[in-house]
């Protein structure tokens, strides 16, 4: 949930065209949204209805849609088990909005990056106060028997 909210926050940061967005599952349950719960629920219901009706148009599976309306545009994109719906001002850059929405969905599908394990801290090296010992070599004792 927090990861989804982060992804949506990132989406609205990178795309100035997107006014509102909601992520929902295939049953219409809101996963995260940029608007309050009441509006998010209404958006999710309308998006799911729109997507289902559009999906009935052909035998092939619908992957995305956009609707250009008088006061703005709406977009719905799906992945394996989620949908993302977004609204924009009128006449947006359609390709760019689709790209941003797909990137957002893709980022939700990825596992969160593992935090690198902190390296064990080494104890600070002690300063030598005495002169270093002279190197000693150990010789193998000659085999006295030989």
């Amino acid at each position, binding site marked *: 949930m927090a990861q989804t909210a982060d992804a949506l926050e990132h989406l609205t940061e990178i795309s100035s065209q997107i006014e509102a967005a909601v992520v929902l599952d295939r049953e219409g349950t809101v996963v995260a949204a940029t608007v309050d719960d009441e509006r998010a629920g*209404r958006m999710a*219901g*309308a998006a799911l209805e729109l997507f289902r009706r*559009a999906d009935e148009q*052909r035998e092939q599976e619908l*992957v995305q*849609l956009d609707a250009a309306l008088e006061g703005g545009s*709406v977009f719905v994109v799906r992945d394996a088990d989620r949908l993302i719906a977004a609204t924009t001002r*009128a006449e947006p850059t359609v390709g760019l909005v689709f790209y941003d929405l797909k990137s957002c969905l893709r980022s939700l599908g990825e596992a969160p990056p593992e935090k690198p394990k902190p390296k064990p801290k080494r104890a600070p090296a002690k300063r030598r106060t005495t002169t270093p010992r002279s190197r000693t070599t150990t010789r193998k004792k000659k085999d006295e028997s030989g």
Partner: protein
Amino acid sequence: MRAARTLVLGAALGSAAGAVLLRRRARSRDRVELYFDDGTLVTVGKGQPDAERLLSPARELLVAARG
């Protein structure tokens, strides 16, 4: 003086007519584009069969987003 008034009136009527035309044109642009997994794109425009079935929830979505 009269000519000036007529000119102003004419300009006002002209701009009003232009606004109405633009609004009508914008309304007629209402359309839904559907992208299917086999790469096909289907455009359903206002006036076509099934258009209102798709445009209606799309409008609801836009209204809901704007509160």
